[in-house]
């Protein structure tokens, strides 16, 4: 019987990835003779036919049927309340901010994200902006002759296409660029700019000097100490938070719960029977929002849950 140098050897053979020495040696073996016969025999088999037209027709019919009877299902009532609550919250946040911000005259478009949500926006000039959770940005819809301007509160990652000046305004300062990739985290208490590509110029409000950042540099300003700190470090291509989902391998249930708690800054309450040690070979969850995350994670196989938005808490219940 053959012994193999590693546990992917045959997969690599099948894909023609073996080195010529490996192949020459393998061809001498009994397994090689057997497996080539197996592969030859496979040619005598074929897949079952697939009637795509019929299946698509059935799907369309079902969609049409569901549209017709869109009566509010009593079971989904509670979930709808949650959606309504989220929408009301969103309106409140945007509204408050809208009326307290300084007025600008040019027409603009506002984008806002709630907890755990991210939005990716691509604009006609090719500029891409990823808005992190709990952030608001307003993008001026000016024509191309003018500066491109974004007002930001929260965190966003920018990949700015070459062109006119691009300005990000925040409470504590502004960032000026031409064409580059950078991240801005702006709250009332900190202003952090990280440059991933090209150059950006950072002006801190009330401080005269201009700070020029090149790729890999970061500046953090905190008004409480009225000081700014420059860092230099090796960075990935884009900030870690822009990855759209978390994927974990060989992870215990407890660690998976931890990872979700951290991502969404919530508490997940597990029932006493919860098996912390149980290990998943692969577990992943979406970063879209907590409900989607739960739905896409293996937790959904064994548990139902209730999301208590005000307490930022999720309560898991064993499925009956």
């Amino acid at each position, binding site marked *: 019987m053959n012994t193999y140098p590693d546990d992917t050897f045959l997969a690599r053979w099948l894909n023609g990835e073996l080195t010529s020495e490996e192949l020459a040696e393998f061809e001498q073996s009994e397994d090689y003779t057997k497996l080539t016969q*197996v592969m030859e*025999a496979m040619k005598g*088999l074929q897949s079952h036919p697939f009637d795509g037209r019929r299946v698509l027709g059935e799907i369309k019919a079902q969609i049409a049927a569901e549209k017709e009877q869109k009566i509010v299902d009593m079971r989904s009532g509670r979930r709808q309340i949650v959606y309504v609550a989220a929408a009301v919250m969103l309106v409140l946040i945007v509204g408050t901010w809208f009326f307290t911000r300084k007025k600008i005259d040019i027409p603009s478009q506002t984008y806002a994200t709630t907890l755990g949500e991210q939005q990716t926006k691509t604009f006609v000039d090719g500029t891409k902006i990823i808005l992190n959770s709990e952030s608001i940005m307003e993008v001026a819809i000016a024509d191309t002759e003018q500066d491109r301007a974004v007002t930001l509160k929260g965190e966003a990652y920018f990949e700015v296409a070459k062109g006119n000046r691009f300005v990000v305004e925040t409470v504590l300062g502004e960032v000026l660029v031409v064409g580059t990739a950078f991240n801005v985290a702006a709250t009332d208490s900190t202003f952090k700019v990280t440059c991933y590509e090209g150059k950006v110029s950072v002006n801190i409000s009330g401080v005269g000097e201009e700070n020029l950042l090149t790729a890999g540099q970061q500046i953090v300003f905190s008004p409480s100490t009225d000081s700014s700190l420059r860092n230099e470090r090796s960075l990935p291509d884009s900030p870690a938070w822009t990855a759209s989902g978390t994927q974990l391998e060989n992870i215990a249930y407890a660690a998976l719960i931890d990872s979700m708690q951290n991502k969404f800054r919530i508490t997940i309450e597990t029932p006493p029977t919860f098996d912390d040690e149980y290990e998943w070979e692969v577990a992943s969850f979406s970063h879209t929002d907590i409900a989607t995350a739960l739905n896409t994670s293996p937790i959904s196989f064994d548990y139902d849950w209730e999301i208590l938005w005000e307490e930022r808490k999720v309560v898991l219940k064993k499925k009956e």
Partner: protein
Amino acid sequence: MPEAPELSVCEEAQFDQVFTLHAEVLRNFCYYKCKDLDQAEDYVQEAFLRLWKNCAKVPLGKAKSFLFKVAQNLFLHQVEHQKVVQKYLRRQAQPISMEHPQFQIEEQELLNRLEEAIANLSEKQRTVFLLHRMDGKSYKEIAEMLDISVKSVEKRMHRALLVLRNCIPQL
């Protein structure tokens, strides 16, 4: 800066396109997992229905992985899997052969053993093996469909081959 219009699966043309591109492999994927053609077709329908319902949230580029994830979840949720071992594949129509009858019998016997061995592979091994051999998917594509690493795909393939070699009697 006006926002660039994004192609959306909410538009019927895009939805149909996604269906044409992925439905058949998705059906096979489900079939390899659940051992039941009708069930596999139901999963395909359900996955596309959910895609339609979530079309505003799923960008076109993510539609494929969304479909496979839904199908995978549907399969995992299914409490009782069919216990009946089905034949995974059909035999090609036999061309009139000039070969010696004895040889033809041996060939049929080999196919019998092969079909049985494929049906008895673990669900994970079988899915990887058949997606690669029957649907011509690369290890990378399979990894994306299953949401696992390429390395894991290769390991499953290696193990599948170790099992299948036993279809051939000792020389």
